C-alpha cells in the first residue's frame, strides 16, 4: 500500500482558488520567493454583468510561473491511457505532481445537485482509500480535506467532457511540479515599472501582449478603487449583489505588499522600509475592514454600511497613491532606473 502527501502550506493569498492553490504549493519552495515578490502588483477589475471581478494580473498564476512545470492533459487523453482515475492520480502524485482538476463536488459535499468546482489534489493514502484535496467549498474558507476514492471516481466522472469549463472552456486537468531548474532574481526595475503602471491605471497587457487573454472590459491599478465606488452604488440600488471577494483580493494585495516591503528592505532596496510598512499596514487594515463590512452588510442590509465601505475605499486610494509614490522614489535610488511617469517625480 502506498501513500504520499506533496508539500502544502496554508497560503497568505486566499482570494481565488487558482491563486490560493498556487501559493499553498509555492510557499514550500523558498527559491520561488524573488519571483513572487517581483509579481502580483497589477490589479484588474473586470466589469461582468451583475458583479465586478477583481484579481491579480496575470491569472491563473500557474500558467506563467517559471517555478511550476505544467503539463496539461485533456479528459480524452487521460481516459485513453488510464482505465481508473484514482490509479492515475496516485501515479501522478508519486511523480511529484499536484493536480488541478474540475470535480462534481456534489459527490462529497452536502449538495443535492451537480456542483462543479476546480479542486487541487495534493496527496493520497491507498490504505485508507482517500485523497487529500484543497478548496474553499469544504468550510467556506480555503481548507484542506479528504475525500474517498469512490467519491473521487464519481466526482471526476460526473463532469462530462463538454461540461468541463476549466481553462477557458477547453477542459482537462493540469499537472504541476516544482521546477528546480528555473532561475529568477528579484527584478527591482520591473517592480518600479509595475508600480508606475498601477498609479497610472495602465494595463500590463499593453506591454506583454503574449500574456493577454480574452476578457470583458477591465480597469487597472488605482482605477480599480474608482470602479469599486461605482460598484457600491450598484449594490445600493440593487443592481448588483454584494460580494466580499473583490475586497479579499485588495486585502491580499496589501498583505503581499507588506511582505514585499520586508523583502526589499532586507535586500537593501528600501531606505525607509519601516516607515513604508507602517503606512501599508494602515492600508491593509482598511482593506480588511472594508471586506468585513461588506460581509456585515450581507447580514444586516443596512445601507449605512456601504457608505462606510465607500469612505474606506477612498482612503485606501489616497493612502496607497502616496505610499506607492514614496516607494517608487525610494526604490529608484537603489536601482539603475529613473522614474518614467509623472508619479515618479516626488
Amino acid at each position: 500500500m502506498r501513500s504520499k502527501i506533496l508539500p502544502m502550506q496554508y497560503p497568505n493569498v486566499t482570494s481565488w482558488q487558482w491563486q490560493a492553490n498556487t501559493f499553498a504549493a509555492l510557499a514550500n519552495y523558498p527559491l520561488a520567493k524573488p519571483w513572487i515578490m517581483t509579481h502580483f502588483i497589477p490589479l484588474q477589475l473586470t466589469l461582468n454583468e451583475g458583479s465586478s471581478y477583481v484579481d491579480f494580473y496575470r491569472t491563473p498564476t500557474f500558467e506563467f510561473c517559471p517555478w511550476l512545470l505544467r503539463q496539461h492533459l485533456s479528459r480524452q487523453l487521460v481516459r485513453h491511457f488510464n482505465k481508473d482515475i484514482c490509479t492515475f492520480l496516485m501515479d501522478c502524485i508519486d511523480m511529484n505532481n499536484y493536480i488541478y482538476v474540475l470535480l462534481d463536488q456534489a459527490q462529497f459535499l452536502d449538495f443535492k445537485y451537480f456542483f462543479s468546482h476546480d479542486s487541487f489534489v495534493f496527496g493520497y493514502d491507498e490504505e485508507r482509500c482517500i485523497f487529500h484535496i484543497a478548496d474553499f467549498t469544504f468550510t467556506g474558507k480555503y481548507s484542506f480535506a479528504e475525500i474517498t476514492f469512490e467519491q473521487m471516481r464519481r466526482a471526476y466522472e460526473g463532469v462530462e467532457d463538454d461540461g468541463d469549463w476549466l481553462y477557458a472552456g477547453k477542459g482537462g486537468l493540469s499537472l504541476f511540479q516544482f521546477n528546480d531548474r528555473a532561475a529568477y532574481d528579484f527584478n527591482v526595475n520591473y517592480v518600479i515599472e509595475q508600480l508606475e503602471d498601477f498609479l497610472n491605471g495602465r494595463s500590463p497587457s499593453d506591454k506583454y501582449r503574449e500574456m493577454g487573454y480574452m476578457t470583458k472590459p477591465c480597469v487597472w491599478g488605482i482605477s480599480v478603487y474608482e470602479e469599486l465606488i461605482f460598484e457600491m452604488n450598484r449594490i445600493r440600488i440593487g443592481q448588483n449583489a454584494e460580494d466580499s471577494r473583490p475586497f479579499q483580493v485588495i486585502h491580499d494585495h496589501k498583505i503581499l505588499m507588506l511582505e514585499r516591503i520586508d523583502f526589499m528592505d532586507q535586500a537593501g532596496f528600501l531606505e525607509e522600509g519601516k516607515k513604508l510598512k507602517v503606512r501599508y499596514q494602515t492600508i491593509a487594515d482598511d482593506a480588511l475592514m472594508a471586506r468585513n463590512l461588506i460581509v456585515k452588510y450581507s447580514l444586516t442590509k443596512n445601507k449605512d454600511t456601504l457608505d462606510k465601505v465607500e469612505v474606506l475605499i477612498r482612503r485606501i486610494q489616497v493612502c496607497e497613491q502616496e505610499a506607492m509614490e514614496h516607494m517608487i522614489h525610494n526604490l529608484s535610488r537603489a536601482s539603475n532606473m529613473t522614474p518614467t511617469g509623472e508619479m515618479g517625480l516626488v
Partner: protein
Amino acid sequence: MLKKHSYVERIQNLIHLKLEPCDNQPISADTLLREVWIQMDSMQMITFVVELETEFGLELPDELVGNMTGSHLTVGDLADLIKSSQERV
C-alpha cells in the same frame, strides 16, 4: 438599569454559544476580545458582532470587525460600551 456584570454575563453566554465546547476557555471581564475573536473564523466573528448588535439593540463600533491584533479592548470594555449606549437611549 442592569449592572455591568449582567452585561458581562450575557456576553459570556453568547460567546459560549458561539464557540465549540472544546474551545471554551473561561471568559471573564478581563478577557481580551482579540483572544475570543481569534477562536472564530472571520465569518463567525462578523456574525457574532451582528448577533451582539441584535441582542442589545445597538450598533457597535466598526473597530470590532477590523484588525484587532493590537487591540486592548476586553469583554468588560464591551460591556461598558453596551451599558453606556443603552443608558443614553
